[in-house]
């Protein structure tokens, strides 16, 4: 096919098109939009993208993403160093941090156990978690993986890898009714779980 577009434009379209959720039409729209913007807008975007790769580090303790290694949470002396909350992704840390009520540490697995996607135990940070627990001082590991089949299997895997540590309590986030919602509108599974996990009044 003859090149209908100058090379820089088609390269930009191609690059946008590789991003998740961006189809060919959207990629074109983005490229032409940027073309019409002042140079500063394009430079800010280019710098942000490069900084993302250059300046974001993975914490070598908890594997959360941050500007420093070890990360701000791992070095924060005010946090409860006896509890580790295990999550699938950095965004889960943000969700939990927004609460403000959890004061322990984190461990980011960077995925869930999913052989069909080629993600096996060694692709997750489970061995590193075991190492952290073995180092001592941990009383509780809270497994906060998703309530999907893969999240449950991941939780199961983490539990079995930690079961040899006496004095370390492995817990799983409770499943039940969303607060502020009517029982009438809860889906059956959630309601069943809420009933199973009922608590004393």
């Amino acid at each position, binding site marked *: 096919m003859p090149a209908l577009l100058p090379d820089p434009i088609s390269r930009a379209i191609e690059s946008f098109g590789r991003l998740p959720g961006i189809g060919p039409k959207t990629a074109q729209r983005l490229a032409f939009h940027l073309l019409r913007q002042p140079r500063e807008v394009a430079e800010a975007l280019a710098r942000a993208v490069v900084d993302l790769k250059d300046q974001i580090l993975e914490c070598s303790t908890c594997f959360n993403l941050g500007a420093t290694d070890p990360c701000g949470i791992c070095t924060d002396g005010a946090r409860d160093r006896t509890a580790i909350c295990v999550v699938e992704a950095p965004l889960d840390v943000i969700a939990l941090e927004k609460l403000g009520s959890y004061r322990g540490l984190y461990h980011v697995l960077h995925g869930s*156990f*999913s*052989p*069909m996607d080629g993600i*096996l*135990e060694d692709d997750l940070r489970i061995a590193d978690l075991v190492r952290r627990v073995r180092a001592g001082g941990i009383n509780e590991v809270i497994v906060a993986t998703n309530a999907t*089949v*893969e999240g*449950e*299997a*991941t939780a*199961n*895997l983490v539990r*079995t890898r930690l079961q040899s540590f006496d004095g370390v309590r492995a817990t799983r986030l409770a499943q039940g009714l969303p607060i502020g919602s009517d029982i009438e509108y809860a*889906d*059956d*599974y959630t309601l*069943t779980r809420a009933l*199973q996990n009922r608590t004393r009044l």
Partner: protein
Amino acid sequence: MRLRHLALAHFRRFAAFDHAFAPGPTIIWGDNGAGKSNLVEAAYLLATSRSPYSSSERDLIAWDCPHRPAFARTIGDCESHSRPVRIEIRLVEPGGNHSLADPGAAPGPDEPYHPPSVRRRALIDGQPKAIGEILGHLNAVHFSPEEVELVAGPGERRRRFLDIALSQLDRAYVRSLRRFQRAIVQRNAMLRRLRDDPALPRTQLDPWDAEAVAHGAVVIACRLRAVSRLNEALASLDGTAPGAAPIRADYVPSVDLRAINVPDGPYIRGWDEGDPQVVAVASAMARAMTASRGRDLGAGTTLVGPHRDDLVVRAAGIDQRLYGSRGQQRTAALAMKVAEAHLMAEVTGEKPVLLLDDVMSELDPGRRQFVEALAIDTDQAIVTGTEAAVFSDRFRGAASTYRLQHGNLVRA
């Protein structure tokens, strides 16, 4: 349980179709290719979210639809426990935008994109819902000449029979079945990884065994209870057509369930992992999965579990799949469908809609009479045939009769 009104757009051969159904039986007759089966198919789609005839929803879209992306729409105004509910299913060509020419419709939640398949969108009372949410609003039992495969065909056919019947009755069943299937896909992927790389620790199978057992045990327990109720219904048919010989269906599990007693009594919805019977099935299944590991590793697939179970349909004790004549198999399949309707009525307290597609011409006069009586007795039946003469005068007197011609139902 009733389908009061059916509206189609770009569905199969119907650019547009609209019809208000009267209670009781509706006869639709017309030439081959007039589209009778398409109407039955649309009603079944609204009940189950699947076509009884086609495994690909692509086939349901009229591709001469002038819109792009092409779409098909079926809307059913139903009545369940005297409450009206509107079910809508849209099938949309992959790619392009999915807002359709309907500015009032909010887009459904994002689904993973699978290029070759058509997107199914469901709306209940105008609100976008997950496709599984439509189950249970319109319960239907479908019978057509191809349904002889329920008895004559492979085990997959009989598992689907149980799965579709139970899915319409029990949301917990749908959820457990889906999670079980997902766990098996993952377990099979893990098996193949282990086969290709013997250095990987086999303990990575454990979580998948646990997930498969947790959800598979619910599937098996629900099926055992349902089969026991189906047999109760089959026994009540003894001596009447279609049961010339007493028909029974026995669940043949791939795991050893001899120690499990299925309690008598009605089918109970909403079983979960904590139920004592489920716990008993789960421990049997867990043992079987552990024992099967070596074979599973060799095969690269999971050889035990509800996805490998079967149902043996017997007439007077004789396995009809192996030894029944075509006619006997058809009779047995009909009996199974009648039992399914009994089960649905028992669990939901409402008789399901019967969708009888071109079945009369295949039946002898005695069974035809039986089916007609059944269609009169239920809340609603949609019955098709190539000519009005296959129906008795008595049945035609009780039914609303229409001829399907050029895509329209004409009172006949």
